[in-house]
């Protein structure tokens, strides 16, 4: 029977059983994309559809952050004209999307991953190199 845990309980009390690392997918160049291949260690923990859905959404969000569009060009030109001092005042499009990503990861952790004893680490803390998924020991947390 699967135990349901809250995110707080996991962080403070559970012991780490294993860690899975989702590496970057470089087939489209240096754009930030992560591999969507389902790791074998998570087979018993979460279903494939859910995991792939999370990965796909994250990849789309990162693609949106790094999109070369009119907004990024306007931002870049404006920044150049002000000798890049404008970065002290406004938040760039990339930073706004990163905040969105952080919120999404938090939400996924709360709703989907923590009840299954898993924890996603924001890849920004690892320099956008890996997504670290921590698998916690499945033990009873009730007294």
């Amino acid at each position, binding site marked *: 029977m699967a135990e349901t845990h809250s995110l707080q309980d996991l962080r403070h009390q559970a012991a780490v059983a294993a860690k899975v690392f989702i590496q970057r997918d470089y087939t489209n160049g240096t754009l930030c994309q992560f591999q969507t291949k389902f790791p074998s260690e998570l087979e018993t923990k979460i279903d494939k559809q859910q995991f792939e859905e999370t990965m796909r959404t994250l990849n789309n969000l990162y693609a949106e952050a790094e999109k070369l569009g009119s907004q990024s060009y306007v931002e870049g030109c404006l920044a*150049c004209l002000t000798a890049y001092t404008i970065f002290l005042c406004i938040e760039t499009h*990339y930073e706004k999307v990163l905040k969105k990503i952080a919120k999404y990861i938090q939400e996924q952790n709360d709703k989907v991953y923590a009840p299954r004893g898993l924890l996603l680490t924001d890849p920004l803390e690892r320099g956008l190199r890996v997504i670290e998924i921590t698998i916690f020991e499945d033990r009873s947390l009730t007294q």
Partner: protein
Amino acid sequence: METPYKKKTPKKRKWETFPGRNKFYCDGRIMMAKQTGVFYLTLVLILVTCGLFFTFDCWFLAEQLTPIIPVIGAVLFLFVIGTLLRTSFSDPGVLPRATPDEAADLERQIDVANGSTGYRPPPRTKEVVINGQTVKLKYCFTCKIFRPPRASHCSLCDNCVERFDHHCPWVGNCVGKRNYRFFYMFILSLSFLTVFIFAFVITHIILNSQRIGFLSALKDSPVVVCFFSVWSIVGLSGFHTYLISSNQTTNEDIKGSWSSKRSKDNYNPYSYGNIFTNCCAALCGPLPPRWLPSGPLYVCMLVATGFAQLDPRVEKKKKPAAFLLRSQYHTDQKEHLVSFCSFPVPFFRLKTHSHHLLIQFQILPSVLFKV
């Protein structure tokens, strides 16, 4: 059940425990390489050259030609200093080293791939196909990661840097993904500035030589400090313009990674195809974040107002002082007195043998905001 009392230890910021050979200032906001001596030299050279230009040539040129010349010079100078500081102080795109768990996981994967044997395995590489071109990803033994494409390990800073261009001692930092555009803007504006100064110093000499002869005009003018630097900086700007338009890094160009000499079907998989898109992507593309966070920054915008007036104590004999200062330099009675008052009202007083000129600046704190 009561939780035992936990003693609150101050949480160390990431930059305080950073393993690379970097120096940090302002609570981690400023990040530089370990050796910064040459950076200070760059700063001094630029300041001295511009200082000499503004002191000796601008008055004459503003009078003889147009007062817009010093204004353009000042704008260029500020842009150069701004972009230089931005390049030197920003994080070039340093990749954090692998956590022990991650390193162990990678080692396990490599052992499985190699078939773990007793002897030391060959250098680790991973092949990836990017836009039809096979690229080898190398394993970094210091950072314990497979380097992303275009990343390289800087031996001076002891970090892996994304889209590593080169380590620039003049700027005191690596040039990588996050600060390449600042670096390019710096060398481009510096080329304009040096060409500008050079051209107008020559103009000054020519105009002066019409009155007092060429040799004495040459003797009069300070040695053209920027003559040799003009060619090297303009050359460097041209080289980097070529690199940007073909979307290559200095590292790749030197190694000839995408050169057609290597093989017939060798091409650059990162290029967008046309020069315009490559330039836009490099200069105006989105700026990736730094993973080393720092606290909130409080920025105080200072407004400086300046005005020049003739000291009314000395009677006026000739034309307004500002434009006559230059002609006094080859007399024995010249005297330049520059003094500073302490904050908040610094002022400059320039005195020549004929009259006084008082230039006063006031710095008014205006806006304090948090970013």
